[in-house]
């Protein structure tokens, strides 16, 4: 299924990451945006408020982020592709209903343009410290998908990918940007609509009498309906059976939660998208994402000039974590070097997957600025000693 040209601003533009993300969403067919202003993500909402009335969609500014998150879940049940955007404090408020989205299996996309935290932290300055919150922030056990672009151009494409994954796996998908990527302006080329492939909503073919809202298909994902079409479904945040009815037993819990987790875990190979360069034969692999992946380039170049065989692995999908690839590389390299603007989050995953077969070195940064590439270079040099 191809994109509707109405939402696709084909051509060459200079856009910041926030605007590019909004354009990617519009190209992907997002026609409902609910949000609340928060730096540094506000431009995503502003772009939507200006553009969406011209493409046949709805923008609403809600009273807070809990409301925004619920509004996109409700609208998604109405058959429309939906998005909200926020930053750390708002992301915290959304967590309650991100859990509801995971439980009700509602396709939707949430953008987090990360700033320094905790709490109000550094509203206008960069951070990458919500990466674990994205994975574990709502209570209970569930799996989500999160992507992390490193340029405005990639924000555009990642937004499309996020919608396709949300529809395919019926799960909230996060776009984990950071303030630098959100606010940097670069050239963004938007292709013609016919070059944009979209994954349509998985609507059921069954008549209402035979339809079970939570009966999974082969890939463990159930097909969906649109409210108002006579299916008269029930859906709940409570543990439920295939009919969507609440069932308060350990057996129902096991069956449901196991499926919610496995529909992502068992499909991880289809979901994961990473970028690699010179990882074969490398002695050190720098694992990075977002703005840190660009800052690391200078350090990698210098290390290579000094004769060190450095590979590069960039996480575009951060969750599910590409654990298979790290496990494959671990016995072949001396070390993984992980620069991130936090005190150690994704590095924990790298370390877990390396399982002692390679050193894992964190290059931390508290936020408010990007790394000095020199610090990454030192870590690379240190790692092969």
């Amino acid at each position, binding site marked *: 299924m191809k994109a509707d040209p109405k939402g696709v601003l084909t051509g060459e533009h200079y856009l910041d990451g926030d605007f590019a993300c909004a354009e990617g969403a519009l190209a992907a067919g997002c026609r409902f945006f609910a949000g609340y202003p928060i730096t540094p993500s506000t431009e995503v909402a502003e772009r939507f408020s200006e553009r969406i009335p011209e493409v046949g969609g709805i923008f609403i500014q809600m009273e807070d982020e809990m409301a925004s998150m619920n509004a996109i879940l409700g609208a998604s049940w109405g058959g429309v592709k939906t998005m909200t955007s926020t930053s750390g404090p708002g992301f915290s408020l959304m967590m309650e209903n991100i859990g509801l989205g995971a439980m009700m299996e509602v396709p939707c996309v949430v953008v987090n343009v990360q700033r320094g935290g905790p709490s109000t932290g550094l509203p206008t300055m960069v951070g990458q410290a919500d990466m674990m919150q994205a994975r574990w922030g709502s209570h209970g056990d569930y799996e989500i998908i999160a992507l992390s672009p490193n340029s405005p151009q990639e924000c555009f494409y990642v937004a499309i990918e996020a919608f396709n994954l949300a529809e395919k796996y019926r799960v909230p998908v996060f776009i984990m940007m950071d303030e630098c990527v959100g606010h940097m302006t670069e050239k963004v080329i938007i292709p013609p609509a016919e070059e944009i492939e979209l994954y349509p909503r998985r609507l059921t073919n069954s008549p209402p009498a035979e339809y079970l809202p939570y009966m999974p298909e082969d890939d463990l994902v159930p097909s969906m309906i649109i409210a108002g079409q006579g299916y008269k479904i029930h859906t709940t945040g409570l543990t439920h059976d295939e009919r969507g*009815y609440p069932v308060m037993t350990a057996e129902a819990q096991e069956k449901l939660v196991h499926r919610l987790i496995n529909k992502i875990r068992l499909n991880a190979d289809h979901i994961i998208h990473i970028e690699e360069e010179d990882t074969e034969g490398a002695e050190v692999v720098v694992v990075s994402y977002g703005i840190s992946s660009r800052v690391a380039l200078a350090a990698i170049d210098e290390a290579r000039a000094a004769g060190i065989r450095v590979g590069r692995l960039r996480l575009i999908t951060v969750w599910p974590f590409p654990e298979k690839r790290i496990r494959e590389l671990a016995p072949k390299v001396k070390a993984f070097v992980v620069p991130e603007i936090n005190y150690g989050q994704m590095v924990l995953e790298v370390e877990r997957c390396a399982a002692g077969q390679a050193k894992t070195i964190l290059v931390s940064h508290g936020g408010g600025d990007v790394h000095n590439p020199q610090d990454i270079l030192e870590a690379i040099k240190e790692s092969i000693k």
Partner: protein
Amino acid sequence: MITKEHPMTPLLRMDRIPHIWCPTCGIGTAVSCFAAALKQNEIPLEKVAIVSGIGCTGRVAGYMKVDSFHTTHGRAIPFATGLKLARPEMKIVVFSGDGDLFAIGGNHFIHAARRNMDLTVICVNNFIYGMTGGQLAPTTPLSAKSTTSPYGNYEHPFNLPHLAASCGATYVARWTALHIRRLTNSMSEALNKKGFSFIEVIAPCSTVYARRNRLGSGLDLMKFYHDNCEIKNGANPEEADIGFQSKIIVGKFVDKEKPSFIDNMHVGLKRALGDKYIPYGGDDGAK
């Protein structure tokens, strides 16, 4: 004519009966009045959705045979807002309790009323948190007891019709579980009203509120409503405060016309953008 089927059967999920509510609880009465209102209006059931939050009344969504959404605590209104905007041809009804809608969900209520969002909100007010075993609610009358106000409540409660009216609701009514005919009529009027309509249903919680406050059974509370309700249509809602076992003013307080959120959105965007404005058509952005 004798039929085997209960007249409400098409409106209820019979496969979920028996329900979880206690005998003589007032929630069931509110549900049957609502079902009667839907029937009266011959509203096609596929065009109705119910959204509930959490609590005893929050379970209403699970028993009505329409598209029904049992959301998180306090969040039924914003969920319903999204659903309504995505499916403007549907009637979206929020059915929830006083604690859910006015404590944890209070902010959403006032903003939906302010926007004149096209929703009908039905609040079953039993003055207490029933599901969690009888704690203080933002509607618990002064001096009434609950498990978290064991010495009597010393917080001022909300006057819900006054709150709804001040925030801009275009239809506001209050009835009790005793006023079946009037409540049904109000529900019918609300369903046909554009914009934000609000109905408070005072209802007995026999198990926790009545018992803790030694008010007898659900039936005794119904007798109390009978003896102490004063019907005052058009009354100023500001004067409709509820004290502990005091007189209860009921009636239709507000019924006015005002452009709804959806009306205003179309008018405003059309004025600003002219032919460039493409109203939402429910498509999925794909070819």
